[in-house]
């Protein structure tokens, strides 16, 4: 019953936020003298011919895959109360190194792909790991260090691109790495679409979609069904309570950042392996920052992030038909911006509602004042027991790392 109620509250936030954002956007569209309903109709119009409709869906999916991975990377850290703003730098650095390594070696197909993916994840993890190590050894706020590392990563990626990894001829207007050999091209899924009797789209559907689905399921299982995931969530809800019950918070910070960075390292790969074949000055930037919005909208839940990524990808594609209908495409940016704002506010309201209902429930049950550490999570650890139910004794970490998180 209680769980049902909290699930309802969890869904209420984002749904309310999207609704509020739509109303605000409709007002803005009306203010600039356009018909909001017509705008909505244009945005949802995927095209007349079947091939156009399939094409539109492929464009949305291809955009959603990197957004989903970006949201996932941010959410892993979020779940533990860490704000990894450095996803942007992590994926850019990971993509260029992966592109350079992939172009430099010759391997049979699957192995070659695996190597590129592993290199990307490793570089992303290492770059994010710096943030974790700085936090546990020096108490540096991960917000500050990850932002700063973004600048360093962009500069480093630029140096590598114009220096050692440069593959494009001198004087070319776009600088790129050496293109990947064919063995490192991720096969597309258009054959699969054809098997379902769908029309052939112009653009190849990223085969990396499957990788993203697998990674999403793996992360969901890891966070919801394993000891590590439990420690992670417990630390995110209350660091001091988790420490008291025997979670090694320092190790958790580093591991979580490594994991978040490893997923971040995947963000650029759908495009790299499926379309661009090389990292260059025109390689899609900014996905790491969009990932923060996607994770917020998806409430750090894997399924929610997938839906949020699809919504953002849908809005992104809508910018095209809007322009053809002579409605400013900025409408899309306004909707995205207001959704994120509304989600932050709605999440806070939902959190307070949940907290209040938990307090009331607690007060009814014991007749005592509610525990200040009590939270909305009905699955939270009971007092005095460790996550596995046993009693453990271990001294906590120095306070600095926890205070930096608050």
């Amino acid at each position, binding site marked *: 019953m209680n769980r049902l109620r909290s699930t309802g509250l969890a869904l209420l936030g984002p749904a309310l936020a999207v609704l509020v954002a739509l109303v605000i956007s409709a007002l803005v569209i009306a203010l600039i003298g356009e018909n909001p309903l017509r705008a909505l109709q244009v945005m949802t119009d995927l095209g007349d011919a079947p091939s156009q409709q399939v094409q539109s869906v492929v*464009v949305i999916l291809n955009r959603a895959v990197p957004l989903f991975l970006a949201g996932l990377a941010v959410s892993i850290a979020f779940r533990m109360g860490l704000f990894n703003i450095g996803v942007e730098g992590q994926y850019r650095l990971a993509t260029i190194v992966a592109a350079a390594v992939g172009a430099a070696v010759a391997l049979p197909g699957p192995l070659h792909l695996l190597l590129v993916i592993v290199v990307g994840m490793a570089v992303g993890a290492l770059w994010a790991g710096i943030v974790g190590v700085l936090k546990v050894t020096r108490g540096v706020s991960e917000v500050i260090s990850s932002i700063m590392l973004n600048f360093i990563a962009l500069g480093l990626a630029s140096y590598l691109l114009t220096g050692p990894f440069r593959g494009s001829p001198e004087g070319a207007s776009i600088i790129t790495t050496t293109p990947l050999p064919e063995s490192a091209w991720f096969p597309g899924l258009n054959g699969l679409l054809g098997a379902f009797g769908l029309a052939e789209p112009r653009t190849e559907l990223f085969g990396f979609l499957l990788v993203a689905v697998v990674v999403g399921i793996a992360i969901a299982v890891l966070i919801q069904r394993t000891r590590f995931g439990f420690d992670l969530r417990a630390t995110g809800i209350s660091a001091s309570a988790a420490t008291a019950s025997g979670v090694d918070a320092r190790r958790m910070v580093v591991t979580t950042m490594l994991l978040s960075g490893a997923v971040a390292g995947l963000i650029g790969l759908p495009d790299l392996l499926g379309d661009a074949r090389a990292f260059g000055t025109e390689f899609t930037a900014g996905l790491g920052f969009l990932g*923060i919005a996607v994770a917020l909208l998806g409430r750090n839940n894997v399924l929610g992030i997938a839906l949020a990524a699809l919504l953002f990808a849908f809005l992104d594609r809508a910018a095209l038909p809007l322009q053809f209908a002579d409605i400013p495409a900025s409408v899309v940016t*306004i909707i995205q*911006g*207001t959704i994120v704002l509304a989600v932050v506010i709605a999440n806070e309201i939902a959190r307070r509602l949940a907290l209040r209902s938990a307090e009331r429930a607690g007060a009814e049950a014991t007749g005592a004042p509610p525990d200040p550490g009590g939270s909305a999570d009905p699955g939270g650890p009971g007092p005095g027991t460790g996550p596995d139910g046993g009693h453990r004794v271990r001294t906590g970490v120095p306070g600095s790392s926890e205070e930096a998180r608050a």
Partner: protein
Amino acid sequence: MTKAAALLLAGSLALAACASDEEPTAGGDSGGGSGSGDLQVGLAYDVGGRGDQSFNDSAYAGVEAAIAELGGEVQEFSPNDDGSDRVEGLANLAEAGYDPVIGVGFAYAETIAEVAEEFPETTFAVVDSSVAELGLENATGLLFAEEQGSFLAGVAAALKSETDHVGFVGGVEMPLIQKFEAGFTAGAQAVNPDIQVDVEYISPAGDFSGFGDPARGQILARSMYDAGADIVFHAAGGSGSGVFQAAAETGNRAIGVDSDQYQTVDDPALQAVIMTSMLKRVDNAVEAFITDYSEGTVEGGVDLLYDLESDGVGLATSGGQIDDIQTQIEDYRQRIISGEITVPTTP
């Protein structure tokens, strides 16, 4: 703390949404007075879109002029913030039957190769990018000899500098902007071999924030003026207004880029510091291309170079600050046209 950061971030996203707002497109309805023209021009902008008071607007002005002459209409397309939907936008223009389709900016180099192949019946042009080696029959590259115009800017700066010290602020350190730097430095040194030329870029290759960051443009230019430079040339798009600000603050002068910025800047205080502008006549090139198309004389598969000789690049004279050195500038111009001076394209 983290919550505050999240709110800040959300706020900045919303602000960014406001900042990139653009005017509704009205060109299609008002363009062709006759209404009988069947010219259907597709115009795909670089990131930033219409209203940048520079590159994109210049291209639009060219299309507008062509339509005023020939009739017809234009459909515009601006890519999203990260430019990831360029291919889709260009393809949609071609698919919807617009012909010719013009991509504005070197970023369309890769895109045009992909899309022109898919739509062999459509005539494409791309500004600032070469198509000669792509082997496409239906695409034309509209190129500019930026280094030649920048050379003249360097000549003007060196002639006008009282401290024998000038500066260059580039938006992004990439080959296209390095052409401006190379020409400017060569021009300044042609006049005065001992002149000191400070060179700074706002952002490194791959990070395009340098074209839209007036604050950092101002800091870089300010440090050059403080170090003794008295004229700074910018090739930094929207960041250029920061360079003008720094010039106004320190009582020095600056050189604008792309369009005649003396005319486009709306603040008289900034107008006073704009000594001249290095003109890049994207509008002329676009208009000429559309005219050629309507006359059926587009060759295809070649690059058209707009240089000093064809007045594709040059120096603006608005404000009259370089009137007294026109003879020297004209002299260098003739020597470049005749081939006596070869301007380098890389620093």
